[in-house]
C-alpha cells in the first residue's frame, strides 16, 4: 500500500493490480453464486430505472374504471388496481423513483458522514468530539422515528425524504470512515505525503479518501437497501411521494385496504419488488465485502 501512494494518488492503481482485482472479482463471483445473482438483480434494477418508463406496456397513470381490480391476466401481468391502472407498468416505472431516492440519499450521506468521519479520525481532538457527539445524538433516537420527525419539520416532499434518510444513516458512515482514517493517519504513505509538503486537507483528499474508498463502497451498498426500506416506509405512512405517482411504498399502502377483501395482487407486486431490491443490495454488499476485505468473509 505504501509503494503506490507516493506520488500518483492511489485512485489510479497501476495496470497489473487492476487486472488481478478483476480476476479476484471473477473468482469471488464464481465461488459464491449468490453474489453473481445479486449482481444480475442489480443490473435488472438499473435497467428498469433507466429505460423502464419507455418500455412499459401501459401508461402507469392511465385509469380505466371498466377494468378495475382485475387479477393478473395476459393483458395485465400483475393485475389492475382500484382505478384500473396496470400494476406491472406502475411497478416498473416506480423503480426509477425508489432507486433515485436511495441513491441520492446515499451520495448525500457519503459526502456528509464520510468526510466528517475522516476528519474525526484524522484530526482527532475537538473535531472528533464534535462529530462523535452529533452521531451519538442521532443514535439516541429510534432511526425511523427521527426520519418521520425530520420530514414532518422540513416539509412533506421527496427531497426531504432523501435528506432524512441521509441524516439517519450519518452515524454508520462516520463510524466506518473514522475507524479507517484513524488507522491510516500515521501510515507510511501519509507521512511521506506530509514530508513532501502536502497540507492536511490535501492529504485527506488525495491519500486517505482514495484508500478508504473500497470499504466505503461496501458501506454504500449495504445502506442502499436500508435507504430503500426507509424511504418506502415513509411513503407508506403518507409522507413524501403523493398519489398518483407510482412508488412501491405508496402502492403497497394503496393495496393494503384490498388485502382483507382478497385482492392480494395490488400490494403483493410492489411489495415483492421492494423486497427484491433490498435483498439485492444486502447480498451485493456482502459480496463486495468479500472482495474488498477477504478476512471478514463469512
Amino acid at each position, binding site marked *: 500500500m505504501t509503494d503506490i501512494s507516493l506520488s500518483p494518488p492511489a485512485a489510479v492503481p497501476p495496470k497489473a493490480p487492476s487486472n488481478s482485482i478483476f480476476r479476484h472479482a471473477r473468482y469471488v463471483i464464481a465461488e459464491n453464486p449468490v453474489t453473481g445473482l445479486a449482481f444480475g438483480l442489480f443490473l435488472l434494477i438499473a435497467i428498469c430505472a433507466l429505460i423502464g418508463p419507455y418500455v412499459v406496456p401501459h401508461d402507469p397513470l392511465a385509469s380505466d374504471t371498466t377494468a378495475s381490480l382485475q387479477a393478473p391476466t395476459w393483458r395485465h401481468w400483475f393485475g389492475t388496481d382500484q382505478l384500473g391502472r396496470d400494476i406491472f407498468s406502475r411497478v416498473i416505472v416506480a423503480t426509477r423513483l425508489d432507486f433515485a431516492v436511495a441513491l441520492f440519499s446515499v451520495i448525500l450521506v457519503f459526502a456528509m458522514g464520510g468526510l466528517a468521519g475522516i476528519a474525526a479520525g484524522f484530526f482527532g481532538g475537538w473535531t472528533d468530539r464534535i462529530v462523535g457527539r452529533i452521531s451519538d*445524538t442521532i443514535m439516541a*433516537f*429510534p432511526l425511523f*422515528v427521527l426520519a*418521520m420527525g425530520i420530514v414532518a419539520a422540513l416539509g412533506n416532499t421527496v427531497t426531504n425524504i432523501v435528506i432524512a434518510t441521509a441524516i439517519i444513516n450519518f452515524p454508520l458512515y462516520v463510524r466506518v470512515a473514522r475507524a479507517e482514517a484513524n488507522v491510516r493517519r500515521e501510515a507510511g504513505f501519509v507521512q511521506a505525503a506530509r514530508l513532501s509538503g502536502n497540507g492536511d486537507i490535501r492529504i485527506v483528499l488525495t491519500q486517505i479518501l482514495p484508500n478508504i474508498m473500497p470499504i466505503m463502497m461496501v458501506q454504500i451498498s449495504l445502506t442502499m437497501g436500508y435507504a430503500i426500506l426507509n424511504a418506502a*416506509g415513509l411513503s407508506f405512512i403518507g409522507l413524501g411521494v403523493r398519489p398518483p405517482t407510482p412508488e412501491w411504498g405508496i402502492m403497497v399502502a394503496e393495496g393494503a385496504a384490498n388485502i*382483507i377483501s382478497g385482492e*392480494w395482487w395490488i400490494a403483493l407486486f410492489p411489495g415483492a419488488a421492494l423486497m427484491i431490491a433490498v435483498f439485492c443490495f444486502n447480498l451485493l454488499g456482502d459480496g463486495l465485502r468479500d472482495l474488498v476485505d477477504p478476512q471478514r468473509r463469512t
Partner: protein
Amino acid sequence: MLATLGKRMVTVIPTLIGVVIVTFLLTRVLPGDPAVYFAGPAATPQSIADIRKQLGLDKSLPEQFARYVSDLAHGNLGNSLSTGQPVVKEIKSRLPASAELTFLGLILSIVIAVPLGILAAVKQGSWIDHTCRIVATAGVSLPVFFTGLLLVYLFYFRLGWSPAPIGRLDAFATAPPTITGFYLIDSVLTGNLETFKSAFGQLILPALTLGIFSLAPLARMTRASMLAVLASDFVRTARASGLDSKTVILVYAFRNAMLPVVTTLGMVFSFLLGANVLVEKVFAWPGIGSYAVEALISSDFAPVQGFVLAMAILYVVLNLIIDVLYGVIDPRVRLEG
C-alpha cells in the same frame, strides 16, 4: 452495583440534553415559520399571530429554548389541533397499546431467534444453519408493512384463523378495567378470559410481524457469538472434563455467548420502535405510532414532536436498562465500572 448504576445514569444526561435540543430544533430553526406549522393548514393570519405569541416565538432563541424546557419539565407538550387534547394525555393513554405490542414482538423474536442461532452454531453447516441464514437475510429484506399485509392475507383472508385487523379488541369484547394498561395482563388479573382471548387474537399477528422483522440481527448475533464461544478454551476444558454436551452448551457457552446478544438489543429496539409505527398503521392499532401518523397527515405538528420526544426518551431508557442488564450478566463489567 448501585454506584455503577449511578454512574451510568449520569452518562444519560448529555444524551437526553441532545435529544431535547434536537426536538426543539426540529421546530424552530428549520426553514419556514413554526407558528404556521403549529397553527395548521386552516389558519388565518390572526390565529398565526396568536400562536406565535402563545409559543413565545417573538422572543430570542435561547429564551424560547428555556421556555420549551420548562414546559417539558411541567409535562406540557402542547395541544393537538385536530382533537384539542393535550398531547401528553393522548400519548399516555395510547402508550400501553404500543408497549404491549412491542414487548410481545420482542419476546416472540427472542423465543425464535435465540434457539435458532444456538442450533445453527452447534450444528454448523447443517440444514438448520442454512435456515438460520435464510431467515436472517429475508428478515432484514422484508419491509415490515409488507410482512404484516402478507400475514393478514394468509391468516385472516385465506385461513380465517385470525380476526380482522381492526385494533386491540374485536367488536364484541369490552376493554378490561385499566390496571397496567396491557390488555393481556389486565384481563387475566380481572379473570376475564373472553377479553383475554380476544386481545390475544388481535395482538398475535402484529406482534409476529414485529418479531420477524427484528429476529434477523438477534439470530445472526447469537450464531456468531455461540460459534466464537464454542471454539474457546474453557469450553474445550469443560468438554475434556467430561461434562455432557447439553451442560456445556446451555450452562457454559450460552451464558457467555449472550453478552454480545444483549448489546445488539439496543439496535433491535431501534428497529422495533420504528417498525412499530408501520405495523400500527397496517393493523389499525390504537398506539402512539398511529397517533403520530394521523397527526402527520393532517399537518398537526405538536403530536408529532411529542411522539418523537417520547420515543427518544423511551429508547434512551431502554438502552440504560440493557446496560444494567449487561452488568448483571457479566460481573467483569460491574467490577470495571
